[in-house]
């Protein structure tokens, strides 16, 4: 029982990370019907920006200096920033990156085939990954946790340790969801966003500013994605391949929950996180194959309920 609880708590941490990246994917899918394969890499760039903002110039923990820290020391006031502030900076950077990509790359493709839009996001995936690799090198970097992450920082529940980082990550996630909900329900932009999601042509006809709203939507989505990359710190290291794996977990989470349902993304993230934590112990799946249970769950979800647990059933016009 103790072990079971412990595994669940471990899974919950990852679940929160997957959920936040999944929310980013869902937000864009809802409004544009596009699966953004570059979401993980956009988040990863932002994560590295956070790392640059919070690291002092010179060698980091593992002996490789981080490119850009010298530049940041010269130009960024009060550098190096505390971890929490640096993460806010990364979220802002992610938002700008998202808005930029929407404005200058995705918007001109509006009305083109789904295939060309997918191709562009895959191109962005390759490009951003290469860019991160080029700038910051293939080294794994440890990322300080914004929450107390010492050896004694945990709450003991039934003998199992619920770490402060796990609690912190879930609080952040819940705040993000609440904020997003408030934004969508109570603001004019949120209303426009809902209108676009519900029926784009009609929304355009009644004068909803489609383009501006989509840019804002992309910025928010990318900001939430950036959060996921920054919060990974404390549990695993950041390296150029980290977010590629995260992306597939997040995609699995989004698919299980239903690609157009933010609530589904959170539940899906939770399920994937738990599956990943529990499968090695109880199903005898070796730890390096932890990709398989979420992948299997995703395939199963697609075959049995292609629209996910909470998604809307699409109607296909012939």
């Amino acid at each position, binding site marked *: 029982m103790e072990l079971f609880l412990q595994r669940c708590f471990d899974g919950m941490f990852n679940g929160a990370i997957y959920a936040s990246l999944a929310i980013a994917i869902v937000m864009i899918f809802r409004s544009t019907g596009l699966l953004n394969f570059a979401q993980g890499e956009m988040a990863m760039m932002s994560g590295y920006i956070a790392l640059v903002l919070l690291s002092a110039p010179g060698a980091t923990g593992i002996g490789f200096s981080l490119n850009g820290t010298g530049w940041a020391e010269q130009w960024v006031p009060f550098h190096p920033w505390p971890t929490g502030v640096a993460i806010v900076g990364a979220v802002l950077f992610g938002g700008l990156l998202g808005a930029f990509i929407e404005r200058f790359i995705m918007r001109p493709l509006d009305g083109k085939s789904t*295939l060309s839009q*997918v191709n*562009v996001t895959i*191109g962005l995936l390759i*490009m951003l990954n*290469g860019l991160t690799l080029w700038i910051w090198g293939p080294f794994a970097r440890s990322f300080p946790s914004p929450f107390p992450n010492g050896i004694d920082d945990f709450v003991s529940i039934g003998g199992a340790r619920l770490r402060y980082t796990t609690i912190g990550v879930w609080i952040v996630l819940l705040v993000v969801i609440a904020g997003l909900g408030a934004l969508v329900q109570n603001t004019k932009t949120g209303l426009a966003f809902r209108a676009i999601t519900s029926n784009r042509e009609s929304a355009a006809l009644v004068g909803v500013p489609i383009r501006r709203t989509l840019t804002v939507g992309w910025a928010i989505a990318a900001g939430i994605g950036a959060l996921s990359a920054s919060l990974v710190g404390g549990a695993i290291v950041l390296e150029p391949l980290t977010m590629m794996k995260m992306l597939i977990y997040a995609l699995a989470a989004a*698919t299980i929950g239903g690609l157009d349902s933010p609530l589904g993304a959170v539940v899906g993230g939770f399920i994937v996180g738990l599956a990943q934590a529990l499968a090695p112990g109880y199903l005898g799946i070796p730890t390096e194959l932890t990709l398989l249970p979420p992948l299997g769950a995703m395939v199963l979800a697609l075959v049995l309920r292609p629209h996910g647990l909470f998604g809307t059933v699409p109607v296909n016009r012939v």
Partner: protein
Amino acid sequence: MTVIDQLTETEAEHTGHRPRLARVGWILLAIVLSVPPLVADPLELTRLSRLVVLVLAVLGVNLLTGYAGLISLGHGVFVGVGAFAMANLIDQGLSLFVAGLLATVLTGLIGLLLGLPALRVRGLYLALITFGIALAFGPFVRRLGSWTGGVTGRTVDNEAFVPPSFLGLDDQVHVWRYLCCLVVVAVWFLIVRNLIRSRMGRAIRTIRDNESAAATFGINVPAVKAGALTISAAMTGTAGVLQAILNPYISHADFDAFLSLRLYAAAVVGGLGTLLGAVFGVIALIVVPFLNDAVGLIDNEAVVFGAGLVLITFVAPTGVAGLFGRNGNTAGD
């Protein structure tokens, strides 16, 4: 003549409206490819052979994505399956030809198996599943140590691959390998060409253009998709077989998710839905790093290639092949 035949008749004319230009292209290609064995040194020729093999893998992606409209981000897996199957079948004492044939069939069957759930899903979801499989393949291969050599990889016993004595190529194995690769790839090109022009090829393209309409016309959509997937996986498996022979040391790192992404990118850049597109795609894979070195601005070819993929969608949505006038088969929604 069935409804489908009538329906796609116009498209067949449409795609063939510049047959002469394409034919000139193929002849030029044949001439260009016949020069290297005479001039290139063994190392360069082996490198070129590998590129020829790569064309086959890109053609596999092209068949599935360009003609059938099924996005695959996992074809690197099939290259890997073909290569590892070849290595193990040689271990069993099979002759190279039989081993290669069996490995090809096996890869096709595995493609079918992996794709079975995918046949129920549409569009983007297949991209999702295949991408997941591409990411999971590396750890999976590392796990099957006795077959794949685990983390370090394994050698392939390609000693038996020597030219027959009557050719007089005894001390020029690399030329023999190059010629064999060319022949095998050419055979696959012929198979795909004939397939595309056949009844099944028309069914494949109809499904791409409008799946619901295809079903209404009485096309057995799952069966045709399964067929396209199997053939596509099989030819990509052949590429793996050839690669195992050319490079007798294979490991999981050779078949990571980036191989799949590169193959996909090459298929798109070259031009989806045209046979020559596969050739152009691989040429782009060579030219881009070369130009990048020449300019020397960014020391990472992935950046340039990714940017190229984004750019080509704006500049030439039909790929490089489209620039040459054969803009018939653009893959639609």
